[in-house]
């Protein structure tokens, strides 16, 4: 299985499409960092103008951590697109290129092949999120000192600099898990198609539809919300609440893991039963 995964990785990184996600994240993070460096203080002044009547701000809230949080908030809806592009191509790409039959002539089961592809897709997803974390926090150090962080989470939470790192690690770990769901969905669609565009568009359609439903606070949508995985995608923000509501995080994590498992099981079922003609 290890060799198979290595093989899938080498195939993955030989394709240009794989680098689109990294390049897009790099550009967006750099642009936001520069923008915040130039205009960040004005933004903060606007945000806290009513507090400025009463308080003098000693120190600055525009720093590495606050900007990283803003980047995450801005990017979190867009990373699924980057994830879906690659995960949606994992199986359908082989079908589209006509290499499946050749691949399956080797002495390995369909389950092994699909699992190796699935692990590769999820590893790529993890790498993308870790890249975002390292880039946001690392690049931020060139512009700002680390410092206390302001988060709007039910109330205005100003988190002490010594109380931030574990929150970011928790948030990114949760972020990886939530992106695994998106990757799992795109991968599942990928087993149904013979070209890459279909799975990517399908998974994005599902994502957009569910996100809209998750954000409606009326009638029947309220009933649907707990069953939609999109309701839990932004759960990484919970790590910046004070105090952290671990019950919600555990519950959300369990639901996300359930989705990951179901998507994999469905993909496996489809792929093992599939009549491969290319």
């Amino acid at each position, binding site marked *: 299985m290890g060799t198979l995964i290595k093989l899938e990785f080498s195939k993955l990184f030989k394709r240009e499409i794989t680098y689109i996600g990294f390049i897009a994240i790099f550009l967006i993070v750099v642009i936001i960092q520069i923008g915040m460096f130039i205009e960040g203080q004005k933004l903060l002044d606007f945000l806290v103008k009513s507090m400025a009547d*009463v308080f003098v701000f000693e120190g600055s809230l525009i720093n590495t951590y606050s900007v990283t949080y803003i980047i995450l908030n801005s990017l979190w809806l867009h990373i699924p697109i980057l994830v879906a592009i690659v995960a949606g191509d994992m199986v359908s790409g082989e079908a589209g290129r006509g290499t499946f039959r050749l691949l399956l002539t080797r002495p390995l089961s369909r389950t092994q092949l699909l699992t190796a592809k699935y692990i590769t897709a999820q590893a790529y997803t993890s790498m993308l999120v870790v890249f975002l974390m390292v880039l946001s926090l690392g690049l931020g150090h060139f512009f700002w000192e680390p*410092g206390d962080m302001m988060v709007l*989470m039910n109330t205005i939470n100003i988190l002490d600099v010594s109380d931030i790192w574990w929150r970011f690690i928790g948030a990114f770990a949760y972020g990886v898990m939530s992106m695994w769901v998106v990757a799992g969905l795109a991968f599942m669609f990928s087993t149904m198609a013979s070209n890459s565009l279909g799975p990517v568009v399908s998974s994005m359609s599902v994502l957009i539809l569910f996100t809209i439903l998750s954000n409606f606070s009326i009638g029947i949508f309220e009933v649907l919300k707990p069953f939609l995985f999109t309701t839990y995608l932004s759960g990484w923000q919970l790590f910046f609440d004070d105090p952290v509501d671990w019950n919600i995080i555990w519950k959300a994590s369990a639901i996300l893991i359930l989705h990951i498992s179901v998507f994999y099981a469905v993909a496996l079922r489809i792929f093992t039963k599939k009549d491969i003609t290319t």
Partner: protein
Amino acid sequence: MINKYITIFVFSIFISLNINAQSDPDKIIADVLAKASMVKSFEADVKIDVDVDFIKIPVKNGKVFYKAPDKFRFRATSFALVPKKGINFSVISMLQQPHTAIYAGSDDANHILKIVPMEASADFVIATVWIDKLKDRIQKMQVTSNGQGNYTMTFEYGDLKFDLPVITIVGFDIQQIDIPMKFIGSLKVDPKKAGERTSGNVKLTYSNFRINGSIPDEVFIEEEISSK
């Protein structure tokens, strides 16, 4: 008999003069300022505990520096919300402005004075000050500011050689933030309360005073701290 009336007359005049002296607001303020002027400089550690229902911030530590007549500087190791009003000598400077003082009564321990500033540019409209009858120091102050709401300061003193408060509690009105900005988070403010004023307070606890020592002027120079 005549001697008895003379004695009563003289005694009543004495009592009357004494009462007038005690209730002379300008003298009371002059006594407070005279005691305050004994502090030429000081530095102290301070803990800042902010209690506002829509702000959560841990207790912050910092250092305050004061040098007569009007140099004041707060320094914190990390971000801190420092109340604009009520930090120590801002109160004294209010009493030093041209004003009209009115004796408004007393309670068991304090004189109660009303202070009305004479200059139109003053940043407060009227202040009520509670001044300790025995120790000539400010115990409490209620201020109606010029456009920034009302605030109250309560001072607790320790056993320092000089009358510097060891605890100051500043109560104020603050406007609820009503701009939920998606990219920086989600602030779930009750829409009915958004924009309304709510009350809050900040407790400043001072310790490790160093009074009338030498403090270099560089300490009071503002630094650029927003970025590298």
